């Protein structure tokens, strides 16, 4: 501390207002970094009022046990020697459980300042906390603050600076004397290298048989045996195991402290309980949930969000251009209508304050600057780069709206209730109650859907949800479905109305089937995640945290996913515009005598031919079908447009019967056509969603697993459709029919077999436990 730099660690339970405090004192200029080894976020930032103070926001935890990655990384940081002082944030409305972590943090021997947050709520409830007495009992300063109302923060940090100068003391609180005796003995057996203020902490950890601490201390064999003997004797005396003894002692100390320091007002029903009575009501709970989710979906995806996204895609970034505040739009539309076939000659700028689309503007600027109209540079910039960025930006408004609402639901406490209500349904598939929201959002757009998985704390659940959520057909896949329906049935409007839900069922089946299969694999093996969760009291979120929440998520998407999508779009542009024609390689549209269908000669066509054998068992082995799938990766709605250009049907739309016929002509059978559709709906999503998946997985390996699984699953389903169509309708039987049957049996086996032995089940444990009891 020679340079008077102070490192402050912020510790506390989840939902104690730690993040609100962090954002308040640092002005939220923090950056998010990963702890080495585990994907747990820590945030670090300088204190606004004093740049010499660095604040580290630890993950919200309940204990310093060695079992969860969050708890492990918190204690590793606390014991690392970096923090000079710990601010232990305590939810003053829930002293008992919050003090449990506080005691453990105090035991680390670091200087601690306890910040009793939500002081305003305590006052409102009519409770009284004697901070002086509490401070004496805990052996560290205790300050009342309200992070939400910005009260007591200045005083808190004056105290923090004072405490940082101190060395830290041996904790004040004492357990039962019989336990203290044992702890004393263990302390005496600790090596001399353990400093005085840390001896207590390690004594307790050795008592608990904490594996990490044991490894760190590395006692000699005799001493380890001596300690084990002491602990075993104590366990026998107390008729309980070491962990339970310590936990019991801590809660005992707390009960004592609370008795003396807290005066509770007579209990009355809080607003939170009143709200909860209604929203998680046994009968009303589900309907209310459906209504709330419908509203979120309706606003973010269908109405407002959809409008803004269309505007961004077609007018701001597209070629349409727009009118400031819509002035002149009607006049222009009327003029276009009147002009009929000459619509292109109508100058939109005549009818109001017109701003051309960015694509048009860039194109015009390039041409004015002397670039060849429609040439290489023009095409790369407009069709490649601007279109690529536009594809990303189009999702931002929807995502913004969605995150505004989801972050609100999360911050106010409703999300925990959603998990409570939906858990029953989802855990059967190896998912949790919180997986519902991402799936729902994905039916609008996969990008915010994948991003919404951020609210799932558990890593396994989150990964499983990320992997499966894009199976649900998103809005951009609807044109593909319409095109398929048109090609198969010849009518997209009436019959498609009942057939398109089939593709939703396919999506839902893919999610459920994948969940059931994946949870039995090594990837997701191990104990099922316990779903023991606090249901925090409802409160109106701090506007600041709420806004920050939204901003962080949107920005993370723009920044990280943006680079991936951007690069990918340019690559696809290159692949489809470059190729060899007449023996020379180059930019195809500029070549002499090349036809409109220059893509036939592109690198994409070559690659398509190279890999099309993969799709032969699915019934579509032409390079065009492969190229369509590749264009689907840029954006799923591209499939229809690309089909139009590849099949030379000008200005094709999914409702165009000439496209249906041409499209159907690409496939030998109807089965192949449906297989193609199923493959494209289930395989890797568009680059934007893949960028989001990469972002959420935060690991190249898991990203590869997710995309690989999705493509493999889509291929297998496509195979089933084509082969079983051939077998059942056309009566053909061949090698691939056998493969399909084998795969189907394997899939059914994996879905219906019981959980394998290596996975832990509650049943076994309960049986073992009851056996032990009866013995």
């Amino acid at each position, binding site marked *: 501390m020679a340079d008077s730099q102070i490192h402050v660690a912020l510790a506390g339970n989840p939902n104690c207002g730690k993040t609100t405090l962090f954002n308040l004192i640092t002005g939220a200029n923090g950056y998010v970094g990963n702890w080495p080894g585990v994907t747990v976020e820590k945030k670090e930032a300088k204190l606004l009022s004093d740049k010499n103070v660095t604040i580290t926001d630890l993950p919200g935890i*309940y*204990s310093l*046990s060695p*079992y*969860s990655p969050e708890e492990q990384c918190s204690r590793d940081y606390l014991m690392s020697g970096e923090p000079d002082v710990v601010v232990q944030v305590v939810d003053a409305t*829930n*002293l*008992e*459980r919050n003090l*449990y972590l506080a005691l453990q943090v105090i035991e680390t021997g670091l200087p601690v300042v306890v910040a009793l947050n939500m002081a305003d709520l305590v006052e409102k409830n009519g409770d009284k906390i004697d901070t002086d007495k509490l401070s004496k009992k805990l052996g560290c300063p205790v300050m009342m603050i309200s992070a939400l109302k910005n009260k007591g923060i200045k005083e808190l940090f004056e105290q923090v600076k004072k405490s940082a100068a101190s060395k830290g003391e041996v904790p004040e609180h004492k357990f039962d004397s019989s336990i203290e005796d044992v702890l004393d003995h263990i302390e005496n057996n600790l090596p001399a290298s353990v400093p005085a203020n840390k001896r207590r902490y390690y004594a307790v950890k050795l008592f608990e048989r904490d594996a990490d601490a044991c490894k760190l201390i590395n006692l000699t064999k005799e001493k380890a045996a001596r300690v084990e003997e002491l602990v075993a004797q104590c366990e026998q005396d107390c008729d*309980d195991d070491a*962990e*339970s003894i310590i*936990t*019991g002692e801590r*809660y005992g100390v707390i009960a004592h402290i609370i008795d003396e320091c807290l005066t509770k007002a007579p209990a009355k029903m809080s607003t939170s309980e009143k709200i*909860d009575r209604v929203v*998680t*009501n*046994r*009968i009303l*709970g*589900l309907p209310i949930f459906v209504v709330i989710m419908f509203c979120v979906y309706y606003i973010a995806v269908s109405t407002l969000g959809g409008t803004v996204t269309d505007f961004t895609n077609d007018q701001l970034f597209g070629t349409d251009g727009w009118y400031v505040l819509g002035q002149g739009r009607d006049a222009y539309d009327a003029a276009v209508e009147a002009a009929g076939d000459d619509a292109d000659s109508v100058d939109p700028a005549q009818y109001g304050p017109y701003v051309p689309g960015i694509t048009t503007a860039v194109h015009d600027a390039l041409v004015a600057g002397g670039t060849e109209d429609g040439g290489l540079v023009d095409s790369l910039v407009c069709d490649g780069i601007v279109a690529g960025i536009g594809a990303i930006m189009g999702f931002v408004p929807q995502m913004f709206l969605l995150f505004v609402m989801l972050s609100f639901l999360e911050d106010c406490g409703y999300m*925990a209730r959603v*998990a*409570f*209500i939906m*858990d*029953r*349904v989802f*855990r059967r598939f190896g998912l949790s109650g919180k997986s519902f929201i991402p799936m729902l959002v994905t039916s609008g757009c996969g990008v915010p859907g994948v991003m919404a998985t951020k609210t799932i704390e558990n890593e396994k659940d989150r990964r499983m949800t990320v992997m499966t959520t894009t199976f649900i057909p998103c809005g951009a896949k609807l044109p593909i479905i319409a095109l398929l329906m048109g090609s198969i049935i010849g009518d997209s409007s009436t019959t498609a109305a009942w057939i398109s839900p089939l593709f939703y069922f396919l999506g839902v089946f893919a999610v459920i089937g994948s969940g059931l299969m994946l949870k039995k694999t090594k990837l997701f093996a191990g*104990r099922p995640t*316990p*779903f*023991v*969760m*606090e*249901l*925090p*009291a409802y409160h109106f979120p701090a506007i600041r945290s709420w806004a920050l929440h939204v901003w962080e998520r949107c920005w993370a998407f723009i920044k990280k996913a943006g680079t991936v999508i951007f690069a990918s779009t340019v690559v696809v542009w290159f692949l489809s515009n470059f190729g060899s024609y007449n023996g020379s390689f180059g930019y195809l549209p500029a070549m002499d005598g090349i036809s409109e269908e220059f893509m036939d000669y592109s690198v994409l066509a070559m690659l398509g031919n190279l890999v099309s054998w993969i799709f032969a068992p699915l019934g579509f082995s032409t390079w065009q079908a492969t190229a369509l799938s590749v264009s689907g990766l840029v954006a799923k709605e591209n499939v229809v447009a690309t089909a139009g250009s590849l099949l030379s049907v000008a200005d094709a739309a999914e409702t165009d019967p000439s496209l249906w016929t041409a499209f159907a002509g690409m496939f030998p059978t109807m089965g192949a056509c449906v297989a193609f559709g199923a493959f494209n709906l289930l395989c890797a999503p568009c680059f934007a969603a893949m960028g989001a998946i990469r972002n959420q997985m935060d690991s190249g390996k898991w990203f590869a697993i997710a995309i690989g699984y999705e493509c493999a699953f889509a291929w297998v389903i496509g195979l089933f459709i084509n082969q079983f169509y051939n077998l059942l309708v056309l009566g053909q039987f061949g090698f691939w029919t056998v493969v399909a049957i084998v795969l189907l049996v394997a899939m059914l086996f994996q879905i219906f077999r019981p959980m394998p032995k290596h996975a832990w089940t*509650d049943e076994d*444990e*309960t049986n073992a*436990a*009851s056996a*032990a*009891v009866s013995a």
Partner: protein
Amino acid sequence: MKTLGDVKVGESSTIVKLHGEGALRRHLMDLGLIKGTSFKVVKVAPLGDPVEINVRGYELSIRKEEAAVVEVQ
């Protein structure tokens, strides 16, 4: 053995012993579910599982499956 999962909505009881082992058991203990702790089952989710209990002055959601390791009076 009567477990937490067997306690009816609106009823209170006291924990006798935590069975099981490892992360789940420790997590339950850290949340304050230890020998001698009294609690009340506040409600059950619309689909019958999980249950919400009030313990040590706060609300906790726990699956019946996991509640099975908590032996009660």
